[in-house]
């Protein structure tokens, strides 16, 4: 067996990734898989891919992001498939575009598997160390320096520091530095970034206490089970046959709320100790009680942390109240009368770098070769982080290889929506993905993520050949199925079939496709009419059904995309001088100058840039 030659301190890499959270792991794997000598540095090697908060991957719009990561050749989907303990498809009663997968993970297994994948990736070195400074040369980044003064060189650096930069943990009125419970913060780096001229801000988030499973009485609680046939996230996973664990549901009550109100004077949130802006979509329980006094109960999910874990994650009671208040209010919940807290809930404040300072490649405008991804950009969530990490890793590698960068359009994926929102709007509060953020939502389904992005994954060299072949086979099957739907017809005289389908007379007969357009008929109802259709894999059949049933809507969305095409492809030169355009108002000029949009389409999405300004630019770009 050949010994892998690792690079030692002071060595030259092509890509350096700082932080092995969800963003950093994807970034490092992508760069290494694209053939770059890559270094991944992180504060604590046992915590690679650690889930800081809820042990779950996916959910509304986030499930879409995970599928997109998979379609591009990332790791998150495979990792959750291999370590999930409960899989559920959400929104099954709604249309196909907003169905999302969610899975709970075995927290330890998720982390351990990710570390193993990193360790076994050729071309990737994994090291523990705290980065405190970037190295610069000739107006661009050239490497990093660790706290110990070690220097590593690379033409491309990806920062994914998560909640760690100047992290400050709050439990009640007590606070202390930390990047996550039990881990040190990252000191020095954000000051350095500020000194380089970056606008650095402060955000806040929180997490609930972890409870001792043995102290909970589940017998009276309603159980929530996963789907009977779990659907994998990754196209590489054939099926999931690991045992699935249930969650349990309990509720807060008037007594809980009373105790919480009584503790507000010692809440860092309500006493003004916390300055950072928190996520409105992820309020703490004290926030919910204060803001919605008319609600007499809140639903709480008790989620297992893993197969072998004795801890339970109570989803819905994130809090930074003092420990005694946490214990007291938790004990008012049915089933939790005797609950023991194993780890306290807490809030954390951290430094982030406003993403308005980024290009849509996730490279910073100020320092060439430097990329930011994940929570450092003001987002929250593993999936948002992973998706950005993947894109930043791809572009860092492309730059190191002196290839053209990749930008993902809003019509191509949630990843495109995410990045475009970040760079045009900035982040004034933590950003989470929602399906309502995607104006082309009907085109961005989980099940067609591969059709939207796999060609790109292959083009950059991330998607393995075997995977590409499988994707091509799926496309061929969809084409075959589509052909059969149009060719196979039910004759007007075919009484038996018509009766079986519950149909009246058909004057001229009908193709299967025409029949499928009827709301009351599904593809499954038609399978007895054609063996070839019946033999197709279930995901191919779903795809066929969706494309027929929603054809009208899909076409209308495609028309909308088409209408923006001209603007999206009109590139604005990077050195375009807005200052000389007298016909633009000063306000618009300033905005354009600050964001320096890449295309006319991007310019049109900057708040305050009017259609008239766009028309003016269109004229001047022709000059």
């Amino acid at each position, binding site marked *: 067996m050949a010994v892998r030659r690792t690079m030692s301190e002071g060595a030259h890499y092509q890509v350096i990734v700082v932080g092995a959270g969800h963003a950093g792991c994807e970034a490092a794997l992508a760069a290494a898989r694209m053939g770059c000598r890559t270094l991944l540095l992180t504060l604590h090697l046992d915590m690679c891919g650690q889930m800081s908060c809820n042990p779950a991957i996916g959910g509304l719009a986030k499930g879409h992001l995970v599928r997109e990561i998979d379609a591009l050749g990332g790791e998150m989907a495979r990792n959750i498939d291999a370590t999930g303990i409960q899989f559920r498809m959400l929104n099954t009663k709604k249309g196909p575009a907003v169905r999302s997968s969610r899975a709970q993970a075995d927290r330890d297994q998720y982390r351990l598997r990710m570390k193993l994948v990193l360790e076994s990736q050729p071309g990737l070195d994994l090291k523990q160390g705290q980065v405190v400074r970037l190295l610069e040369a000739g107006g661009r980044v050239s490497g990093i320096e660790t706290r110990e003064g070690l220097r590593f060189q690379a033409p491309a650096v990806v920062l994914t520091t998560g909640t760690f930069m100047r992290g400050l943990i709050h439990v009640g009125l007590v606070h202390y530095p930390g990047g996550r419970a039990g881990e040190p913060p990252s000191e020095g780096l954000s000051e350095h970034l500020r000194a380089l001229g970056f606008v650095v801000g402060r955000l806040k988030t929180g997490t609930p206490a972890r409870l001792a499973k043995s102290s909970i009485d589940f017998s009276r609680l309603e159980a929530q089970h996963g789907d009977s046939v779990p659907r994998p996230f990754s196209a590489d996973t054939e099926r999931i046959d690991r045992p699935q664990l249930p969650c349990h549901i309990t509720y807060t009550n008037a007594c809980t709320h009373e105790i919480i109100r009584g503790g507000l004077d010692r809440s860092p949130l309500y006493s003004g100790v916390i300055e950072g802006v928190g996520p409105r979509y992820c309020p703490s329980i004290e926030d919910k009680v204060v803001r919605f006094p008319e609600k007499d109960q809140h639903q709480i999910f008790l989620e297992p942390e893993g197969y072998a874990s004795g801890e339970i994650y109570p989803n819905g009671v994130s809090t930074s109240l003092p420990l005694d208040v946490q214990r007291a209010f938790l004990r008012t919940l049915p089933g939790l009368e005797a609950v023991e807290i194993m780890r306290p809930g807490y809030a954390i404040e951290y430094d982030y770098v406003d993403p308005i300072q980024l290009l849509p490649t996730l490279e910073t405008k100020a320092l060439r070769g430097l990329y930011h991804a994940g929570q450092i950009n003001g987002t929250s969530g593993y999936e948002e982080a992973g998706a950005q990490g993947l894109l930043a890793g791809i572009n860092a590698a492309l730059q190191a290889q002196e290839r053209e960068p990749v930008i993902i359009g809003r019509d191509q994926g949630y990843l495109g929506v995410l990045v475009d929102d970040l760079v045009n709007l900035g982040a004034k509060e933590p950003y989470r993905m929602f399906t309502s953020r995607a104006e082309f939502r009907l085109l961005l389904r989980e099940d067609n993520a591969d059709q939207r992005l796999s060609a790109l994954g292959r083009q950059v060299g991330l998607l393995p050949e075997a995977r590409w072949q499988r994707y091509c086979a799926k496309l061929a099957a969809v084409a075959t199925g589509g052909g059969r739907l149009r060719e196979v017809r039910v004759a007007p005289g075919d009484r038996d079939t018509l009766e079986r389908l519950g149909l009246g007379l058909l004057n001229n007969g009908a193709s299967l496709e025409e029949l499928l357009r009827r709301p009351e008929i599904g593809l499954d109802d038609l399978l007895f009419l054609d063996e070839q259709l019946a033999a197709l894999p279930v995901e191919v059949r779903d795809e066929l059904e969706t494309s027929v049933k929603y054809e009208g809507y899909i076409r209308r969305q495609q028309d909308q995309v088409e209408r*923006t095409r001209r603007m999206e492809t009109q590139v604005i030169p990077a050195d375009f001088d807005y200052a000389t355009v007298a016909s633009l108002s000063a306000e618009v000029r300033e905005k354009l100058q600050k964001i320096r949009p890449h295309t006319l389409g991007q310019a049109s999405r900057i708040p305050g840039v*009017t259609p*008239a300004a766009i028309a003016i630019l269109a*004229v001047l770009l022709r000059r």
Partner: protein
Amino acid sequence: MTRSAPPACDTIVAPATPPGEGGVGIVRLSGSRAEALLAAAFRGRTAPPAMVSHHLYHGRLCRRDGTPLDEVLAVIMRAPHSYTGEDVVEVHCHGGSQLLRCILDLFLAEGARLANPGEFTQRAFLNGRLDLAQAEAVAALIGARSEQAARIALGQLEGRLSQQIHHFTTELRELLLLLEAHIDFPDDDLGTLDHQAVSTRAAAVHAAITELMLTFDNGRALREGVSVLILGRPNVGKSSLLNALLGEARAIVTEIPGTTRDTVEEELVLDGLPLRLIDTAGVRDTTDPIEQEGVRRAREKARAADLVLLVLDGSQPLTAEDRMAVAMAPPERTVLVRNKSDLPAAEEPHSHPFLSHVAVSVRQGTGLAELQAAIVAHFCGPGAGDTVGGVVLAERRHRDALSGTLTALERFRAAQAAGEPYECLAFELREALAALGQITGETTPDAILEQIFSRFCIGK
């Protein structure tokens, strides 16, 4: 959130001349379907396909059902030998804003789109009809025209109508947020969506817009004509001037400064040009809250007005309050009126960067004809912008936006009745909001999310 500029290849339409009452009005079309659009409406001895480029043809413009609208002259200027470089059609009709509206509607119904400010010139440039050196001039024109269009739209949308349209937006946002909340937060106990309530509310908005559209078609919905604002400090004779121009004692005139406490509006036709004459409270530093409000309104109106008559008392030296009024008046749209010329002049007329100066004595009736001529010249004379055409266009734009909203709402209701999934219903509602957004400004996803977070206890 798509703020997509429409494709540059569709066919646009706009009035090309101000519609005075009487006289001739021109409606211009540009784009690949211009000729087809003309063919759909033109009835004459020569049908459009047979028309020779750059020749005038006589005929009638008829509605779909055959009812004639007007006797017209039509000319086709085929690409590339036209102003825009595309196929251009011009229809010369009898002036008059009501008729112009009907003709615009006719072409809109056939699939033309109202031109954006400066869009004909923009196309001319993009099609290489104007040389590169003119790019800056074209850009400046688009900028100026858009500003003018925005000002006119604002002036048109006041009071009750604006409230009504904002109410539609609020209602539709509300319905959208209900759908979006149920789509994005399925695990939060939001309860079930009350489809009946949604459908009732959508039907109510639909009915209200339909009714409003009728008032548009009667020409009652929006203010007619261009606005002329009378501005000045108290007691300079603003109300007297209004009365004199109207030829009747409409506003109260006294020697007590601060007589007019609110704005007074009257309609007036000058040389066939429909005007809205607006008298305001005198500009001054005051502590009376009612008067303060009056002054605030005057300032706002000066910003939205198409023309300002800035009245000074020529027999008095300039006061601090006069200077306040001068500062409020936009120089490129202001005529300086020095009143009380029957009294000895206080000082030499000073030069201000205004359009023109007129000395009048309302008391003796001197100088009024000159003032009227200056007003008409501003709107119709050589070098006049197309403010009057702009008024018709703004009005049609509002109507067009409402009609787009209506179409989208009809689709929404049909989709709801057919049991289409939530995200498809949301798609239709977003289209309705996008159409309304042309008047009220767009609805961003963030605005919807914001409302969801404030309305529902969401998140874990």
